[in-house]
């Protein structure tokens, strides 16, 4: 299976080189593409300097828009699957192969999950994760242990669907919507590192905003969505 690792990067000058060099050096069998989301720092310059494969967005689109760009690239260049991979070094590439194996066993989406066999810590940071897990379980009947994990692998059908449609952000509400529509979503236990440099996007206000959005979206809005699986790509494989 031909895999594309999509690495959305926004102001990741302190991490991007370490992350991509690791992939190039130890995992040359996988293709990757950095999607620079209009960073204001030296992210793009560093990618050019090192000769990385990069899509340089001239304006900031946000994570959903940047990731979608990567998926369009994958769809248009005939990739069989695409992996959402953080530029900050939290995700470990040694789990890519086991995730691919799971995809080949018939999953549509494989989530690299921190809490499948490891107990989810009961602290304030995880309140959101608990609530989202609960909401997904309530509306789909399926248990997703780590819905906010940003390490997700999509098969060809999914990546085509993600790459062309509105309201397909790489977020838990899309996952819950797809489960409800019959997609096979599986989790694989992975370990994740802490972000080494740079600062996280999340703060309290944004977290609350995110929770309200996810809550409303999963519990209410997803019931009313209509799925459109028409694909503009000829080589659609499902």
């Amino acid at each position, binding site marked *: 299976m031909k895999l594309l690792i999509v690495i959305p990067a926004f102001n990741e000058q302190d991490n991007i080189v370490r992350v991509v060099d690791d992939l190039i050096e130890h995992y040359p069998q996988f293709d990757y593409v950095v999607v620079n989301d209009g960073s204001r720092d030296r992210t793009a310059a560093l990618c050019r300097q090192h000769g990385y494969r990069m899509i340089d967005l001239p304006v900031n689109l946000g994570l959903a828009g940047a990731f979608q760009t990567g998926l369009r690239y994958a769809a248009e260049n005939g990739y069989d699957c695409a992996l959402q991979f953080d530029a900050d070094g939290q995700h470990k590439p040694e789990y890519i192969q086991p995730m691919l194996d799971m995809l080949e066993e018939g999953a549509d989406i494989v989530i690299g999950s921190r809490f499948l066999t490891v107990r989810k810590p009961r602290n304030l940071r995880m309140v959101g994760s608990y609530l989202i897990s609960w909401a997904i379980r309530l509306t789909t009947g399926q248990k997703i242990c780590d819905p906010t994990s940003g390490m997700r692998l999509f098969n060809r059908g999914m990546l085509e669907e993600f790459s062309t449609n509105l309201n397909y952000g790489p977020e838990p509400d899309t996952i819950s919507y797809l489960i409800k529509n019959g997609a096979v979503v599986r989790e694989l236990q992975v370990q994740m590192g802490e972000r080494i440099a740079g600062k996280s996007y999340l703060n309290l206000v944004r977290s609350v905003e995110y929770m309200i*959005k996810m809550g409303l979206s999963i519990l209410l*809005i997803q019931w009313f*969505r209509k799925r459109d699986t028409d694909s503009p790509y000829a080589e659609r494989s499902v």
Partner: protein
Amino acid sequence: MVDISWQIRLVLVLGSLLTVAFVLRRVRQSRMQIDDSIFWLLFAFVMLVLSLVPQLAYWVSNLFGFQSPINVVYIAIIFILLVKQFFMSIQLSQMDSKLRALTQKVALNEEKIEQEKDDL
């Protein structure tokens, strides 16, 4: 103090339900982003609560010395829409600068292509 009439409450209930129906329809047709629908759903919810539990408006009215509880409803609507307007103004300004950056990028790329053609 003038009460909130049942007619006004009915209109508010119908209005908020229609808003919800309309917004959900747009999302269903993939013609509205979920992010943008959240505000209207919450707004409709607040209106619904205010019309179903007018005691809330009475309570605020007494607290702040409004002449009539219906004024609380007006003020609430005006305030929420003003805040929305403020954030939309920020959003518009950001979109404007993004559009400018995009236009410049396209034009600069065109120029680069022309130059390369000439060089050949």
